[in-house]
């Protein structure tokens, strides 16, 4: 059995996923979509029980009514498990993973700024990557966001002359 098949089998057996939820895209690439209620349990098991101890990054996607988040986890044999979960766009609340990956804080801050995710448990710190004074509620990676939405709102006049 290949490594990818082993990963698939373990996840299927342990969490009772259907085979449609797991996709082996190619050698060393496994994609899995998990309901948000189950996400933390699966994530923890992948990290602590399956040796996926490197978080490559987190991708945020605007999928219409939902926001999807893909956590790309890698391990030393080169396998990458991309764990996807969804939250409603109306209340995009995630729980932080920075307790497991302190280096992942910056990726979560990016999700907050660019997609408007609310990350519970994320320690306070500087925002990333948008500048101070950026208007609330404007998240550039949302599909409905256009640069024109900044007209007259940002940068403010005083920023222009004294910035």
């Amino acid at each position: 059995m290949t490594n990818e098949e082993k990963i698939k089998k373990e996840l299927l057996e342990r969490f009772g996923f259907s085979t449609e939820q797991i996709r082996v895209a190619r050698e060393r690439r496994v994609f899995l979509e998990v309901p948000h209620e189950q996400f933390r349990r699966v994530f923890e098991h992948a990290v602590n029980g399956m040796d996926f101890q490197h978080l490559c990054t987190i991708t945020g996607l605007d999928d219409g009514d939902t926001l999807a988040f893909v956590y790309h986890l890698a391990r030393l044999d080169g396998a990458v498990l991309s764990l996807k979960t969804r939250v409603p766009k109306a209340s995009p609340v995630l729980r932080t993973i920075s307790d497991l990956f302190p280096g992942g804080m910056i990726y979560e801050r990016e999700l907050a700024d660019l997609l408007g995710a609310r990350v519970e448990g994320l320690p306070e710190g500087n925002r990333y990557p948008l500048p101070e004074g950026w208007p609330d509620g404007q998240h550039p990676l949302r599909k409905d966001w256009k640069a024109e939405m900044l007209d007259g709102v940002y940068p403010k006049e005083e920023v222009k002359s004294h910035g």
Partner: protein
Amino acid sequence: MANFKIPIGPQHPALKEPESFTITLNGETIIEMDMRLGYNHRGIEKACEERSYIQAMYLVERVCGICSHSHSTCFIQAVEEIAGLAIPARAQYIRTIIAELERIHSHLLWLGVAGHEIGFDTLLMYSWRDREVVMDTLAALTGNRVNYGINTIGGVRRDISKEHLAGLLKTMDILEERTKYYIEVASEEITLIQRLSGVGFISHEDTVMLGAVGPTARASGVDRDIRRDDPYLAYKDIEFQVITDTHNDVYGRTLVRVGELMQCYSMIRQLVAKIPEGPVTVKAPRKIPAGEAFSRYEAPRGEDVHYVKANGTDKAERVKIRAPTLANLQSVARMMENNRLADVPIIIAAIDPCFSCTDRMIRINDTAGRRKETISWQALRTHSLEWYRKQGVDFKDLNAKMRQRMKA
């Protein structure tokens, strides 16, 4: 003594890119460091959603001036995977040769910067002179010193001739000789060793925990390299060693990079010896079928990752890029602790950061400090054209002449 907070940047004293650090000091000793990133965020991911795949490829090549090939290759690997394109072997070899030349160029550049940051400017002059050799080679093979534009979806845009391959071997000989000298300097020059040893220390455990990548991680004994662990391009076909070190400091990061240079020369020799004959491109569809792919690439600074989601049109639904520096910056705060203020530039430089450089405005302070104003790009451009016109150079005229010549 009370703690002091010193702001450094965003106009950076050591680097040519904006980045803001707030350093808390007790005397000369650093207690902690806070950073503010994002000054260079140019919205490239969003811009990719509004461009065709081929346009997006040229755009991501400009994410970084030095790792340009890294980003464009990492991106099109994902696109090609979704499209189910099998790239000709010769194209894979050419991409790999350019990738390793890029690493040589980047590491030699780093060596010079590191020398400069510790007041060893002779090393800067030497290594940047040698870097010219590799940049000229890149220009001969691709037409450009940076932003090579060699990639296209489905392969590469230029073949490498037999003469160029033979020339490449000669270049490797020259650079290997020079690098041996740098290794000698790094292992015997007492000032260099003492200046770098123990500076910017980070333990193996912290490096893993904070998710550092590339030479920064390998210098703390983290044996990870995407080229070996998650092979792509032609790396499966060649032999190489992953260089690691256990000094866990700036000195270790230096040893890893010069060690990697030696590996690059050996890899390029193997690639030249093994490069198969054949076409260098396959026809790629304009529209990419719906799907997603996650691509990894060992850039000179470490693991670069791109995620691409396609929706069946000629434009990507989503492109996500995580460059190695973002992963490495998390560990810089730890490296700073208990070091001296004077070590800040070399510690930051030692992760070989790359914030890329595009600014949106220029602020002018006149020398008497009376006048402060912000000037827009448009105004700056007009000012500059006007300035040149007064010197007798009219760009409007030049453009017209060039158009005329192109017609003829």
